[in-house]
């Protein structure tokens, strides 16, 4: 049999090894060369994200919030966290309610908190599309810099309105940010991704390089892997897409129409009790994590749109709220359960409109616990 071009003697010591050609190429390293390759790779994998942070322009201004389309960019979130921790005393974290889904960036909770404070001291670290399970993962793995700060964390009871929202259905249900939830334990019943995907997700959290590659993909390649991107733009040079400019946030999602005007009817939610709720469990773990990192934590529960609840559901919600409050009190967590806002200031079950946020901020500034914990007044 012909074996054209095969080199059989490179680094071969034994005759029996030389009998079988190594390969049809010469990409063969010795142990020492592998060590050199490993050092070069490790250095590049470590330095890539670090150097990129210096090359890529990122200048969040007043009322900055992560653009909606970059919600999956956990590396950028980590970078924003570092920036916010260096500039602000208090970080406001939470889901789309904190982020301000239906309002412009100058109508969010953090904006009105700053307005009440008369200075820039509250940063909007909310992310649209998050839920407590994912938020916990985000803060645990990408928000490591949040330490020794004041943290206002909002709990949205919306995540307990049904087994589906609470991730408890036995049937597979695709939810946002599966990479951030616990991959193996505790088990999330509706999460059915393959072992490979879960393991990849678990590895990615500890290797900034992988989240950085996701950042490149999300920011420059329309959230596609390079091969898929080249199919969309077959004749374009991929390097030309890397502009080193992070897209600025836009306010495309804002709507100033109340839930009633939108024609949303009252609903009878199938509430999950706090003792059984996975989302509430993940939220509690996040509070514990933030406190373990020496942060001063202040919890805001709601403000849920109680006007949307039918009478029976309303009673259950009140009971649930008092159970949540009991846990916060028992665990010495500073908190505020703001009174419900006027009906016309809600866009849906949980999102206030601009004036609603202004009212919520005012309520917080009048709250004694908030004053003593976050504003350091009294005591």
């Amino acid at each position, binding site marked *: 049999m012909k074996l*054209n071009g*095969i080199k059989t003697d490179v680094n071969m010591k034994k005759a029996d090894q030389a009998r079988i050609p190594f390969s049809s*190429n010469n990409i063969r390293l010795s142990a020492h060369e592998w060590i050199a*390759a490993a050092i070069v790779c490790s250095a590049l994998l470590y330095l890539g994200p670090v150097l990129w942070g210096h090359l890529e322009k990122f200048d969040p201004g007043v009322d900055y919030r992560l653009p909606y389309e970059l919600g999956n960019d956990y590396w950028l979130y980590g970078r924003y966290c570092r920036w916010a921790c260096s500039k602000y005393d208090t970080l406001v974290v939470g889901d789309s309610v904190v982020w301000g889904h239906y309002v412009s960036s100058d109508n969010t909770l953090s904006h009105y908190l700053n307005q009440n404070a008369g200075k820039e001291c509250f940063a909007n670290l909310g992310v649209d599309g998050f839920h407590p399970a994912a938020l916990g993962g985000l803060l645990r793995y990408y928000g490591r810099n949040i330490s020794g700060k004041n943290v206002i964390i909002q709990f949205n009871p919306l995540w307990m309105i049904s087994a589906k929202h609470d991730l408890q259905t036995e049937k597979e249900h695709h939810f946002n940010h599966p990479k951030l939830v616990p991959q193996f334990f505790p088990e999330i019943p509706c999460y059915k991704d393959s072992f490979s995907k879960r393991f990849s997700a678990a590895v990615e959290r500890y290797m900034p390089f*992988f989240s950085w590659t996701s950042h490149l993909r999300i920011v420059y390649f329309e959230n596609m892997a*390079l091969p898929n991107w080249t*199919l969309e733009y077959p004749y374009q040079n991929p390097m030309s897409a890397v502009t080193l400019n992070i897209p600025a946030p836009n306010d495309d999602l804002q709507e100033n129409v109340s839930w009633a005007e939108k024609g949303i009817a009252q609903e009878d939610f199938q509430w999950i009790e706090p003792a059984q709720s996975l989302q509430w469990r993940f939220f509690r773990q996040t509070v514990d994590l933030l406190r373990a990192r020496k942060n001063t934590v202040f919890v805001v529960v709601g403000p849920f749109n109680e006007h949307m609840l039918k009478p029976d559901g309303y009673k259950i919600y009140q009971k649930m709220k008092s159970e949540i409050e009991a846990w916060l009190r028992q665990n010495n967590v500073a908190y505020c359960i703001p009174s419900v806002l006027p009906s016309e200031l809600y866009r849906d079950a949980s999102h206030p409109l601009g004036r609603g946020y202004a009212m919520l901020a005012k309520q917080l500034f009048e709250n004694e616990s908030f004053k003593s914990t976050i504003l350091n007044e009294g005591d």
Partner: protein
Amino acid sequence: MLFHTWPFALFFLIVYPVYLVLKGNRFRLPWLLAASYFFYACFNPLYLILIGYSTLVDYTVVTRMAKSPRRKMWLSVSIINNIGLLGFFKYAGFVTENLNALLSSLNISYAIPEPGFLLPIGISFYVFQSMSYTIDYYRGNIDREKSIIAYAAFVSLFPRLVAGPIERARNLLPQLHKTPKVSLQNVADGLSLFIVGLFKKVALADYLALYVDNIYAAPEQYKSAALILATFLFCWQIYFDFSGYTDMARGIARMMGFNLMLNFNNPYLATGLSDFWARWHISLSSWFKDYVYIPLGGNRKGTFNTYRNMFLTMVISGLWHGAAWTFVIWGAVHALGRFVTRELERTPFYKEKVPKLVKQLFVFAFVTFAWIFFRAESIGDAWLIITRIFNSGWANPNCPVWALILIFGVWIYQFVFESKRRWIFDLAPVRIGLIVAMILYLVLFAPSSEQGFIYLQF
């Protein structure tokens, strides 16, 4: 549990250290066998019955052959059993489908029920490997394997179990008996092979598949340029996919101290069709040469018989790849190519005047054309693609230039590697640079891939 997935990484991280601890004692082979059976059972636990049965029959046959004067009868038992297994699991659907078509054409309303079982992964590979053992023993080329554990490990060795290389007993069995020497160089070699294979599979084959699959799924929607480029890309996709798998298999085996045979040797640099088959899926083509072509008479009985034997071997080889007429035609087209290039190579003009590069490009073009039959869903689709290539006119093919750059990069590497300038690749910085580039490309750009290997379906 494919080589490029996390479950395999975990499997190997458990199996390998234990193997290193046991490699010097009598538990090495049982451990290897248990790991191989576990690996196979991860695809489907029922497959174990099949591989266990196949192993037991061939082991028993050779044991009987050793003690019986009726050696030919025992060989027949082995061949009938192995071909029967393949026929039952691989070709029953094909035969039924064709018989039903025949019955229908004769206006007979009866239809034979189609078998509902799936083709067990890797059956074509380990059945052929097992069969080669009985034939080689019958021919007196090898000694009888006395240990059933060693024989079972030979048939099921997990790096090569599901897609080859189809090893010969005379190469692998002695290695299984020796205490394997796992040196640092073995590990370094294994890693080198594995990374190259992983790159071929994940960064190249899976990438090219994105374009090829789109076009071959609906060829009627595309015009000439797109169909030509899709076929060109498939030509490289299947090479990267299968040779990538083999590289990884050889790399894993090398880390364990085993030397598996070379299965691909830059086939797209072949100067003739015979040369191509000496470079493509070498373990299979040499199997067919040794156990089909030569027993049929090889080239010993005149030109007509030589070509008849060549034709039969290629058609059977085509059918080995899949139970469909497209594979039969693919084999026949290759047989035709072998006739033509064999005759051409006998003429002084072709031999001496035609530049090597022209021969290589001619063979490459021919092989690429033949892949249309291999890849198309049906003969109708293959014909449609061929006719549309010639008469559908021009439209922008939207083929990613990046894919073409990668392909030509590899092709140029291969040309240089087989030229006088191959010393360039002997330089350590070049070799290290290529490995680093491949690793970085994999982690930076390659999509997370759980796509199966094309050859697993055979």
